[in-house]
């Protein structure tokens, strides 16, 4: 049973989410502030955090950043819940590593479906026939581990999935829209800079080995094909 931490300061909404997610078969806990959420997450070890962006103590975006920077929490999926429907907030959240977002007022049924989809994608990350590799990069889906020349690189769940997707499709150009849909599971209704931001961060984390991810100007990205690489 997947565990979900609900971070929502409105008691009525927190109860609403608890009721529906429990009915959908999830184990839930609730925190009413950002600070409480961070300490609760460490003990509860949720698979997914449902994060309201307007919290009484600190901005939800800050909570998101702290989760993604914490070595023990960074693989936790985060779905943002926001009353600020403005695109800029959503895009900022996605660029910071959120897995999906829901805008208030939301349909509880749709929210449950989104949560399930994110968890399903996460589960798929550890599927695979074996270790994927390109150059000095090795990705082990079962152990959820990425190494460059033998040294482990700490990636968030999204970065891991992005790299895995590219490694699975070497030499083939992946458009931003395809990546958004396959990695994030969202249709390209939002600006595609989210993809660029994550590719940039992924390259930085991979160091020199990251050069294997090539930019195809105006189209998207591709992993340099092995024959070209040789």
């Amino acid at each position, binding site marked *: 049973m997947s565990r979900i931490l609900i971070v929502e*300061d*409105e*008691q*009525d*909404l927190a*109860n*609403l989410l608890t*009721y*529906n997610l429990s009915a959908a078969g999830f184990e839930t806990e609730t925190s*009413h502030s950002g600070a409480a959420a961070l300490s609760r997450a460490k003990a509860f070890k949720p698979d997914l955090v449902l994060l309201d962006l*307007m919290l*009484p103590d600190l901005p939800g975006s800050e909570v998101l950043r702290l989760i993604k920077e914490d070595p023990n929490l960074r693989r936790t999926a985060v779905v943002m819940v926001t*009353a*600020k*429907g403005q695109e800029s907030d959503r895009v900022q959240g996605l660029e910071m590593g959120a897995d999906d977002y829901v805008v*208030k*007022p*939301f*349909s*509880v*049924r749709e929210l449950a479906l989104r949560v399930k989809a994110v968890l399903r994608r996460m589960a798929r990350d550890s599927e695979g026939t074996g270790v994927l590799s390109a150059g000095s990069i090795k990705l082990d889906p079962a152990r959820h581990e990425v190494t460059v020349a033998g040294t482990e690189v700490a990636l968030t769940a999204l970065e891991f999935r992005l790299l895995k997707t590219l490694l699975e499709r070497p030499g083939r150009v992946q458009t931003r829209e395809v990546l958004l849909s396959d990695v994030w599971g969202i249709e390209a209704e939002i600006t595609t800079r989210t993809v660029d931001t994550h590719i940039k961060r992924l390259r930085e984390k991979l160091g020199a080995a990251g050069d294997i991810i090539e930019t195809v100007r105006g189209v998207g990205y591709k992993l340099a094909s092995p024959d070209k690489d040789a």
Partner: protein
Amino acid sequence: MNETPQLHRILFLLLATLLPGLAASIGAGALTDLSTGLLAGGLAAFVSFIIALASESDAARAVTRTEEVGDARQRAVAEERDGALLEMQTLAAAIEGMDEGMWITDANGVVLRHNEALRTILGTDQELVGQRPLFLVRRTELHDAVLRACREGVPSTVEVSMDAPRSKTLEVHIVPLGASLPGSAAVFRDVTERKRLERVRQDFVANVSHELRTPIAAILGYAETLRSGALSDAKHAPQMVEIIHRQSERLGELVSDLLELSRLDAGERPLSSTRVSLGEVARQASEAMEPSAAGKRLSLQLRIPPDLSARADPKALEQVLLNLLDNAIKYTPEGGTVELFGERVGDRAQLSVKDTGLGIEARHLPRLFERFYRVDRGRSREMGGTGLGLSIVRHLVHGMEGEVRVASQLGVGSTFTVVLPAA
């Protein structure tokens, strides 16, 4: 020497510099045309000339007068020069009288002259003449813009944030003086307040959106949950219906308060100014609030001198008192006291609502009357407020030419005082 027409051109150019809108509307061609025919070496000399003009012009005129010339042509030249001097004197006074700061630089961007307002805007006592922009305002974008104007003849407007001596935002409009007139002029406008108001407006819109969406999310979510099967959940269904009802009420109150504020803002609710017996209004308000006070076992006390009256709008004043009493009752624990008392102080009549409630930390007091400002979001939500009550109170009291004050001590209680013109 054909000096006067040149001066006219420079004058015009300078005026155009002072008025950014006008300058913007003048194309590069027009500027070039304006400066055509200006003698070399003009600007620096001219600038010294214009700033020193106030003192020199009398002497200049005296010289003009002593030039006893019979020749009509020479007299016409002298008259024209007199006219030009007068215009420039006016201009010098105008530059000094401006709220905006202004400087003129040479071709290398070194400040040649400035007005007094510039010192105030930059918040400095140091010598400005002879300095480069980067030394005076440590922002490369301004420095670059000045050099662009000097070297490439490109006008621009830059926004500069300053941290010291105090945080402010300046909008600086920089124009080249012209192709054959080396140097640039810049006009500095302090836009800190405008920026602050823009932010307040944006925050307000974001807040309204948040405050409206939250109850809607709850209503929608619970209705959907009930429809998808929870209706037959005998344990939870009644609670859900209760929440839908409560959140609908909250939404309704929020919309009424927003409309009220918007009417007050737009001046669509004219307030009368009649002689109002404060004892009478206070009695009505406290009678209306008696049931909620009794519900919390609070003692609601009234102490108003019978002859105390003020110039006010009776309805608005009652609304103010209801609002303050409602807050006092909400934030006072059971068994406490809420007191409504009045007194006359000089030509003012005061009404105070004093409670033995939770009290408010001093740091919150200055912002207490702002829209959606919350001392404790969790607590005010429990109490069911819209976050607009005190803002409406302040609006109404200001509309009656009064003021509202608050004094509070954490754990002891708060006193809100409405001060009105006595009648």
